[in-house]
């Protein structure tokens, strides 16, 4: 994998199953995104908020990384509007980290607000997807990931 390029999503081997971390405070949306990703042959871990996501990514000091090295996350997909830490704030934290900054982060939102979209793209988001999520959205995502 080329260093310094967050647009290089190439998997390390053709047999790798993408491991996606999906973050959303809404239970129904979590279940939906999980199924959509599983149907696209992804391994999925879900988190209900930003801090939990950071914990799972091993980005909190002293926090427990509950995923071992072999389960390295290939993609983070997060809702924008979450109480406490927003998806944007989560994106920033991931992009600021030395370990995880290459991981593509996709932002989902039910609201189509250009300033919001631009803000996220400027911060290094790979893509911005409008909710509700559909199969075609996820297919597009995973195709790029597996390219």
């Amino acid at each position, binding site marked *: 994998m080329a260093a310094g390029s967050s647009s290089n999503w190439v998997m390390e081997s053709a047999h790798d199953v993408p491991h996606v971390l999906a973050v959303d405070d*809404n239970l129904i949306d979590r279940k939906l995104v999980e199924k959509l990703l599983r149907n696209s042959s992804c391994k999925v871990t879900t988190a209900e908020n930003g801090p939990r996501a950071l914990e799972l990514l091993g980005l909190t000091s002293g926090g427990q990384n509950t995923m071992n090295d072999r389960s390295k996350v290939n993609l983070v997909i997060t809702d924008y509007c979450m109480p406490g830490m927003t998806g944007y704030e989560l994106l920033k934290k991931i992009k600021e980290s030395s370990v995880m900054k290459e991981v593509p982060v996709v932002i989902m939102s039910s609201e189509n607000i250009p300033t919001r979209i631009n803000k996220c793209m400027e911060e290094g988001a790979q893509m911005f997807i409008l909710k509700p999520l559909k*199969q075609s959205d996820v297919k597009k995502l995973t195709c790029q990931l597996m390219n």
Partner: protein
Amino acid sequence: MDGLVQLQKQLVDYTASLFREGFLDDQFNQLQQLQDESNPEFVVEVVTLFFEDAERLLNELSKTLDSSFPNRGQASIDFKKLDAHVHQLKGSSSSIGAQRVHSVCISFRNSCEEQNVEGCLKNLQQVRHEYSLVKTKLETLFRMEKQILEAAG
């Protein structure tokens, strides 16, 4: 055999009517397409989660708005909290394709933003009504599907 065909036709017609009358939109089709042998109950599971979540949120909305509580004068209504709950309901209803519920939630959010108490009270009534309708209809739909599975043996 004839009975099964009848049931299937009824299901098709009933489903079509739900779309025609705006209770459901294309997102519900998305849910159905996601269902497969690895998860044959997916739609029922997600919709059931929606019912539970919606009922919880409607309760919260009532509590926040109910001025019959002695210490809840209209001046102390927490519109931010109201909006947060409506936002959740708006999201889940949209994700399962419950179009009418979703539409009322949009109006409801506007009322919250305007801090319009009358508007909020009216919207709450509307969203309760639409939720109750779509719940009944989806339960009917699931019952019909179950009947077909049983008739098909």
